[in-house]
């Protein structure tokens, strides 16, 4: 009995791994999905870039439910993928459990921190990038009122909001910032209708530049802004192309680089905490043909100066997550 069981188990494992080249990397997208045009899509972009350049193969899967996370990570680890990269802070807790069970597999979590020897945790200084686009928003605004649509109301998104608000006030101390969040659950990442309605409400309150840090929900924000003829600011990926000439800029977060680097390092991945900040090119703002006409020379100049000051440490943008407070209200 015992023998047959073991045998069955063994063949099954073989079957699982057969056809998969040993140690292909794998990527798990958080809720919101691969094509959220934002955070997850940036990760996909990095993976694709790696695949195109190296001709390698990788597996990916999209989360559809909170409860599946642990199973997904485990499934990839069990099947021998290495490294297993995942996006989103929600992966942290399940990863803690699974990573301990698979000490020979390397894991990478983006936006979350897991303190285990076989995990690389990648975080970004979103407040710095947000500060820059905040400055740009304040300079582009004619009404003196700009707004922010956050996804889930969590410290990470407040970090965006807080950086943005600081940037706005830095450029125009008289400016008014309206802040809204889409929800308190991961559904908030994928609710473009609600995003659009919130944007409408902000427009009625006078906002003429809106920054969306809300994953897939942001698509609705940018859409409504474009329909109403106001400017919007994209997030994570470069979203300038979504509505050419109507997206002021995008606060890019180089999730793609994080994934690309992890994939490239492969099994020899160095673990530990990696902070991708403005100085390291981890965050920034997007300039391309689509928004070239919107960004004036004045703006360009001010932003260049601010970037340099932040990179040098001369300007310190307050990080909401350091003490859960913000010098400018982001409620």
């Amino acid at each position, binding site marked *: 009995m015992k023998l047959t069981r073991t045998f069955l188990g063994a063949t099954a494992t073989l*079957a699982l791994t057969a056809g998969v080249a040993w140690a292909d990397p794998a990527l798990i997208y958080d809720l919101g999905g691969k094509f959220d045009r934002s955070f997850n899509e940036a990760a996909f972009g990095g993976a694709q870039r790696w695949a195109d350049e190296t001709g390698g193969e990788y597996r990916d899967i999209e989360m559809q439910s*909170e*409860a599946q996370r642990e199973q997904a990570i485990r*499934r990839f680890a069990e099947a021998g993928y290495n490294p297993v990269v995942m996006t989103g802070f929600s992966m942290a807790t399940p990863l803690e459990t699974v990573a301990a069970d698979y000490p020979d597999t390397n894991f990478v979590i983006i936006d979350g921190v897991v303190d285990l020897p076989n995990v690389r945790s990648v975080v970004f200084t979103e407040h710095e990038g947000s500060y820059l686009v905040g400055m740009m928003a304040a300079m582009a605004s004619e009404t003196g009122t700009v707004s922010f649509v956050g996804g889930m109301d969590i410290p990470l998104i407040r970090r965006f909001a807080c950086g943005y608000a600081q940037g706005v006030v830095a450029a125009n101390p008289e400016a008014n910032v309206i802040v809204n969040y889409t929800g308190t659950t991961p559904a908030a990442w994928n609710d473009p209708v609600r995003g659009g309605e919130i944007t409408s409400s902000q427009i009625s309150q006078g906002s003429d530049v809106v920054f969306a840090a809300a994953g897939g929900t942001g698509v609705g924000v940018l859409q409504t802004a474009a329909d109403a003829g106001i400017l919007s600011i994209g997030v994570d990926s470069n979203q300038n192309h979504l509505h050419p000439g109507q997206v002021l800029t995008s606060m890019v977060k180089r999730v793609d680089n994080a994934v690309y680097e992890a994939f490239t390092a492969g099994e020899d991945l160095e673990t530990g905490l990696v902070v991708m900040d403005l100085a390291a090119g981890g965050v920034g703002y997007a300039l391309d043909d689509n928004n070239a006409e919107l960004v004036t020379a004045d703006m360009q100049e001010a932003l260049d100066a601010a970037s340099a000051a932040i990179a040098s440490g001369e300007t310190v943008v307050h990080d909401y997550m350091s003490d859960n407070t913000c010098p400018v209200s982001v409620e």
Partner: protein
Amino acid sequence: MSSTRMPKWADVLLVPLFSLLIAFAISALVILAIGEDPVEALVIMVRGSLGSTYGWGYTLYYTTNFLLTGLAVAIAFQARLFNIGGEGQALIGGLGVALVCLFIPWPNWWTAMIAAILASAAFGALWAAIPAFLQAKRGSHIVITTIMFNFIAASVMNYMLSHVLRPPTAMDPATARFDDVLRLPRLHDILGLVGIEFSRSGPANIMLFVALLFCGLAYMLMWRTRLGFEIRAFGQSEPAAHYAGISGVKIIMVAMLISGALAGTMAVNSVMGGPQRLVLNAVEGAGFIGIAVALMGRSHPIGIIAPALLFGFLYQGGGELAIETTIPREMIIVIQALVIMFTGALDNMVRQPLEAVFLRLRRRG
């Protein structure tokens, strides 16, 4: 009506079986239509869910969920109450599990498990009690009220997890992880006692046996006790039950409380047995799959075991499909929908021709 035209066994076995085959055939067509190979899909599903003890560990974990929610729907069906609220009752049951596990320092897993079962059952029953009461006393249609209560439960959980139970530093709307002492023994641990090797990854745990025990107890309840007799009588004919002195209010309340309690205990498996913390949507639609399971199992506490296993297989196999192919995981929802449609609503489409066949056989014989 039907039993006079066709033997009972045919109604109980053949009708669901043919319905299931039709549902699968259409599912295969869907897979074909999106450009995938249904045979290959089946192979992947079988391999991923039944081909290793790792797969079995997940298959049986999901099976446990569906046994409990299927039983919940079945008991209510026996009283002719359509409890669509299993999802909400299980969600709230999860709250009970979390409260018991987070705030009471249990010395070991089994005391915690018993307490969690009791708490989740109580919470689930409570959530079923309001629609049940409104049905019994005010005639509010229980299907609509339980649907509404699913949404209300989702809002309650949303609030509890975002504002009350979330640890101050965490971003996820989820509770902290329970103490390791509370980890339920998994099949790896249990089967290891008798020398069977089993993957330690699969979350199937002792709740599987608890669920099977509940099936047996439910069978005894329905066919060996006065209460079961009364529930079945009420389900068959409300006026007759009234004639016999069976209180409709009592039966509706009791049947729904049992149903809600069973749905609630499902959370012990999916919270304590799975991620060991309460996350949003810990139920993952199991409350609804319970409907399909109960329909296929003809609302019989033993009859639901096979369909629960089938859906456990579909769920795990479907997850594997999503990884191995471009068929999204939602394919299981399609299959689930077709099973519910053909076994629950289009059963006459299968029954009528079958009856004709039996009639012809009888005439000839």
